[in-house]
């Protein structure tokens, strides 16, 4: 992969600035349609998922009290793994995105939710929602590209250390939640100098992470095992395996979102003065979907609809599947490629890239832009992406809520 600005065949060269703005308008319309129809059905969906997850977790932990018996260990571990995956993906990730804030239920709200994860929700929200979702796939801005430890683009200079990146990636996958916690802390950068290490802000954040990890570890590796008495070690192992499975699974799903072939990256300068349409376009080109069954979508937290999620991060996750055909049709009409594939294929493709880029480039990267970049249509001196939004009159129907 090479940033889109440096590609020989720029996949968006055929789009005029008007086309790009038209794409923005069409996408806004799709968003409005879903927003206007959010309601009791969606609320019931997330409450049901939460209920199922909690019952499954309680049930599995109950079974694990007797984990000395191999069948109990197997069933309990499997159940707990699924419960932990659901909790992080379809529930935690999406609630923390504010997808369910509109329900105004303080128990299911991005400002109050805390998840079963090493990184405190507060810090994850900042690095994920604010940086990754805003600067998706912009080299140098979006640290999700390789998490600052890997080379994921031909344009990133090669270093002999990169030879080990397949191994780093695997280790990162196994301890993914801790990797994310370190990443949300920007540990690498903040530990670099004495000054940064001493920064009270960093120290406070570090303390929060330590406390969070402490509680998590105490729960999974001390308290629950202790409760199982003679099954102490077995329960401890079961919880470790469940965490490992959850880590491997979420790492795989997330790798599939932005690494497989077909996904574009962007130059830092390309996003200055980006309009709403250009921002949408970058999200469209910078994400890849995973195809599969309904269950598959739920287990990935609907990140299998990564394209739809990146276009509309705050749409309730159960709606992504619904709008996917419209989005696909839009891609087709504008001659863009909608990257999607089954999980094994996408995982393999992402891994292939990690391995390929651990070696230096075979051909040098072109030095100058070969084709006009989307930012070529920047609207001068307008760095406000909101400028692209049409001002619309207030929705009369919703004012009905004001009267008793």
């Amino acid at each position, binding site marked *: 992969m090479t940033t889109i600005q440096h590609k020989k065949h720029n996949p968006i060269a055929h789009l005029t600035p008007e086309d790009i703005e038209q794409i923005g308008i069409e996408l806004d319309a799709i968003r409005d349609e879903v927003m206007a129809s959010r309601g009791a059905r969606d609320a019931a969906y997330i409450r049901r998922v939460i209920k199922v997850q909690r019952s499954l977790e309680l049930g599995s932990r109950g079974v694990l009290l007797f984990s000395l018996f191999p069948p109990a260990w197997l069933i309990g571990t499997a159940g707990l793994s699924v419960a932990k995956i659901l909790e992080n993906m379809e529930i935690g990730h999406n609630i923390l995105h*504010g997808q369910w804030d*509109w329900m105004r239920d303080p*128990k299911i709200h*991005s400002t109050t939710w805390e998840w079963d994860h090493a990184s405190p929700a507060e810090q994850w929200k900042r690095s994920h*929602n*604010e940086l990754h979702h805003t600067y998706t796939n912009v080299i140098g801005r979006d640290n999700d590209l390789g998490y600052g430890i890997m080379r994921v683009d031909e344009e990133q200079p090669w270093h002999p250390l990169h030879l080990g990146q397949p191994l780093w990636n695997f280790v990162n996958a196994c301890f993914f939640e801790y990797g994310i916690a370190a990443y949300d802390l920007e540990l690498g950068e903040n530990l670099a100098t004495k000054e940064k290490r001493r920064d009270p802000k960093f120290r406070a954040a570090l303390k929060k992470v330590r406390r969070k990890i402490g509680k998590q570890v105490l*729960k999974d590796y001390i308290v629950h095992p202790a409760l199982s008495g003679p099954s102490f070690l077995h329960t401890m192992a079961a919880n470790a395996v469940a965490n490992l499975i959850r880590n491997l699974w979420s790492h795989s799903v997330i790798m599939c979102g932005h690494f497989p072939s077909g996904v574009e990256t962007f130059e830092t300068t390309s996003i200055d003065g980006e309009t709403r349409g250009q921002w949408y376009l970058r999200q469209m080109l910078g994400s890849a979907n995973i195809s599969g069954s309904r269950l598959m979508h739920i287990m990935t937290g609907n990140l299998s609809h990564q394209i739809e999620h990146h276009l509309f991060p705050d749409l309730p996750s159960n709606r992504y599947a619904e709008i996917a055909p419209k989005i696909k049709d839009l891609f087709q009409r504008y001659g863009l490629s909608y990257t999607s594939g089954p999980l094994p294929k996408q995982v393999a493709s992402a891994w292939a890239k990690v391995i390929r880029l651990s070696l230096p480039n075979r051909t040098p990267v072109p030095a100058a832009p070969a084709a006009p970049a989307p930012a070529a249509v920047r609207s001068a001196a307008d760095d406000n992406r909101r400028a692209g939004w049409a*001002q619309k009159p207030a929705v009369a129907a919703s004012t009905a809520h004001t009267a*008793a």
Partner: protein
Amino acid sequence: MAVIRTLRTGARRVAGLLTTPLLPTDYLDAIAPLRNAEVPRARVEAVRPETANSATLVLQTGRGWPRHEPGQYVRIGVDVDGVRLWRSYSVTSAPGRPDGRITVTVNAVAGGAVSTHLVRHARRGMLLHLDRPAGEFVLPRPRPARTLFVTAGSGITPVMGMLRSCLNELADVVVVHSARTREDVVFGAELRALAAQGRIRLVERHTRADGRLKPAELTDLVPDLFERETWACGPNELLDDLTTHWADAEAAHLLHVERFRSAVAVSGEGGTVTFLRSGTVVETDGTEPLLDSGEAAGVLMPSGCRMGICFSCVLPLREGAVRDLRDGRLTTAEPGDSIPVQTCVSAAAGPCRLDA
């Protein structure tokens, strides 16, 4: 005792460790939602139609529900189309029932999302959210010797709460109640029965036939008007009239009024924004995001992407109306509400107060 208490706190702490980052009650809520004292809820036990447009809900309250004073109201949170909306309703039952039940009577207001939903869709078993009972519209102790209640429409509800619990302690009670027709009188049968027993003197006014009650007429209906301590509840116009009338007679201290909240002002075109914590007040034009207005005025505002996707800029709207700049959707908050809004994509749609 101390041992038991220590054991109990210990058990609670262990339970907390088992369920972190959630609370044990988050799991219990699924089976026993009324046991959670931190999040007061109520279950609808029965729905009794009162008139064509109103119904009484019998609510089973849960743990931690405090005793209310007759005349007080309670804010009730109802999920309407998936969104939790809060409205205030007077408690109409006597306090301290051993079964922990209370009743509220809801009048379906035209265009009222919550009241219509409750009157039409409330069913036995439905779960509602509660706030603590509140309000100053209560009878003093010792009870006054002579009392007058002037009510109109659903304004009878807090008064009914008082009559049901305190009538034995009140010697001389007059109730002047207005409703459109005889059939529209909420609690009509009960009031008439009380009157028939001679426990109250009831003056019914049917406004469709006889027109609205004028304060001047009150002197004819109740000759010892200004010798009575008076409680009034109803539409704002009526209460304004009464307030003037009592003030003119220099009897303002004898009149207590309860106003139902007026609807939130929605101009759709900006308005005065008050940032409550910093005390900053700015005028906005309805196109500028609250985030920008606040920052321009020097308020420390949380922010992130500034384009509506990261939810870092969310602040509670305590009162007023804001409009989503992306799709025009309105969000309104009444006093007592605290509704989180994304300030980077919301503009004022009327005067509003933000917690920042």
